[in-house]
């Protein structure tokens, strides 16, 4: 019922009716070294076979608990990490295995905003230089032009012009995150991957940064991959949301249908676990037992089955695949 209108909404975001980013069966494993000769004794399956696509101008949110592989997925897409297997198609080009000059070219179009605004800015550089660096790296511009452009960017992200001559430590967390955003914007990328951009900030500042990101998205026609662990933040920002668990995509859907009708038991538990800022609302809570298992030795079958309240016999044997059970609502669960 509601899915029809949702479908229309998602189409609004596809003016050129094509995907900016396509991920197919992406795997990123980290080797675990051990023994006397430091042989590879196992793998941390940080991202284990995920597929999704992001349309132009859309925001895809990735949520999950710590260690579920959402950051690794983001970094692999940017090619900061080498994928173990699978395909990454960006703007129609296969960027899975490119390197050197080609990779450099592609990086111009995808930028990242990092989680920790205290660690991601060079303390020895002036803010003006931090923001100018990507432009300086990729274009030949005179000093004056460069400065003008940086000033312009500072204004766009809501920082005063005198920020140019200051150092990162002179700013608060929210302002530093604005510097990080200005740096990511400097080359006018097509896509920005924001990895937990607001998790280190207070709510009042968090809302400033979220509003800024939304404004910039409209202004520069940006496509976002928004990675966060806070479901209410992801819901606010995204058009579609992917829920990850232990390196796998558990559910991928339009935000409305995901929140109105979560299908995967993990998504249900995750949504019910959020404390609601309303003391009169008493909701039925699904409390999961135990912790996320180690991704070195993921459980057989469905990775969620040891904690799943609805687990069946089949769940421990075969791994469910992500399949479309409703229009634009994909889920990996044997129940469907």
């Amino acid at each position, binding site marked *: 019922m509601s899915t029809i209108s949702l479908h229309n909404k998602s189409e609004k975001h596809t003016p050129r009716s094509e995907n900016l980013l396509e991920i197919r069966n992406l795997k990123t494993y980290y080797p675990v070294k051990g023994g006397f000769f430091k042989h590879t004794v196992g793998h941390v399956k940080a991202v284990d076979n995920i597929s999704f696509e992001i349309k132009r101008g859309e925001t895809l949110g990735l949520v999950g*608990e*710590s260690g579920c592989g959402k950051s690794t997925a983001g970094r692999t897409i940017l090619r900061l990490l080498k994928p173990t297997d699978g395909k990454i198609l960006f703007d129609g080009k296969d960027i899975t295995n490119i390197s050197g000059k080609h990779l450099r070219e592609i990086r111009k179009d995808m930028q990242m905003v990092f989680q920790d605004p205290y660690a991601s800015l060079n303390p020895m550089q002036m803010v003006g230089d931090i923001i100018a660096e990507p432009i300086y790296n990729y274009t030949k511009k005179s000093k004056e032009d460069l400065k003008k452009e940086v000033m312009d960017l500072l204004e766009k992200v809501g920082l005063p012009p005198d920020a140019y001559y200051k150092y990162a430590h002179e700013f*608060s967390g*929210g*302002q530093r995150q604005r510097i990080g955003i200005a740096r990511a914007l400097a080359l006018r990328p097509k896509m920005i991957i924001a990895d937990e951009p607001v998790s280190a900030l*207070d*709510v*009042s*500042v*968090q*809302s*400033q940064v*979220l*509003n800024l990101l*939304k404004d910039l998205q409209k202004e520069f026609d940006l496509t976002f991959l928004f990675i966060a*662990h*806070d*479901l*209410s*933040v992801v*819901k*606010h920002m995204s058009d579609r949301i992917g829920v990850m668990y232990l390196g796998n995509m558990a559910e991928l859907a339009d935000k409305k249908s995901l*929140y109105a009708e979560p299908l995967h038991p993990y998504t249900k*538990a*995750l*949504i*019910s*676990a*959020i*404390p*609601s*800022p*309303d*003391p*009169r*609302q008493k909701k039925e*809570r699904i*409390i*999961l*037992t135990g*912790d*996320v298992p180690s991704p070195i030795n993921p459980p057989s079958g469905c990775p969620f089955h040891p904690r799943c309240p609805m687990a069946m016999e089949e769940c421990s044997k075969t791994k469910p695949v992500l399949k479309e059970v409703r229009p634009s609502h994909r889920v990996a669960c044997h129940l469907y």
Partner: protein
Amino acid sequence: MSKKKSLLKEAPLLEVKNLETAFDIDGTYYNAVDNVSFKVKPRQIVGVVGESGCGKSVMSLSIMQLLPKGIGKVKSGEIIFDGISLEKMTEGQINKIRGKDVSMIFQEPMTSLNPVFTIGYQLQEVLFNHTKISKREARLKSIALLKSVGISRPEKIVDEYPHQLSGGMRQRVMIAIAIACQPKLLIADEPTTALDVTVQAQILELLKEIQEVNDMSVILITHDLGVVAEMCDEVIVMYAGKIVERTDVDTLFYNPKHPYTTLLLGAVPKMDEEEERLSSIKGIVPSLTNMPKVGCRFANRCPKAMPECFTTTPMLADVDQGHEVACLLYETSKPREGVK
């Protein structure tokens, strides 16, 4: 049974009166907590909310007398716990109360356990300090405690080291240590901030259960308004070292009076509503050294600020029964003659 008793007017378990805690920055003391007064009744969960740097943690450290020596000190005020003044106690006297009658859970379960001792050792340390107990009994008791906080295989965990446990398990161990001597008051400083939501839900459930079983009072410090709504009976909203609003949880969420509280509530993205823009508060909390001397400390960020907000310091006073607000928009907060 206990519910009936709570109907009677009970003496507060903890009473903080005009507490001022100051920190030494380059030779001058600046008040991180400024003239804070509140009460905690028995079996009550009091939430303390506010942005980082608003003095929530410093306040709790002041109650526990755990301020860093030589840097922070309680300048004035009284902290009365169960009829005794804590602030005048010697180190030896306070050690008898700390961990026994008042205990604390910290934010970082990763750093608040000692990595070189086993879980059992750290649990038994509290028991040995405060009770006469044999080694064998202490071990059995610590296993029972671990079991009571929902740790499976407690017989094995008791001999393990903190690094072998996950974040949620470590926080459970911290809770077990904190409740080992059945304290009357538990101060939980951001107990779930470092945890994932599903684990946070487990820990909050556990805290609530323990609070009911042990008849404990809890001061829950958090920046997450969702956690407050879920857990607390009463809420204190702090801003820049001062209490700006104090009331019961229902009133706070449905009828907030202070502009700061209203903005804070609006800044949280809601799960069941669709909103294009979030309300945000311009600017940031003033730093300790830049605190305005007179006037309301929120005035420079407040959308409703009037000229007098910059010249007159508002007082925390009742606007309704049991609803205290410090804002000049309300007649009651205006200073009266003879009262400072």
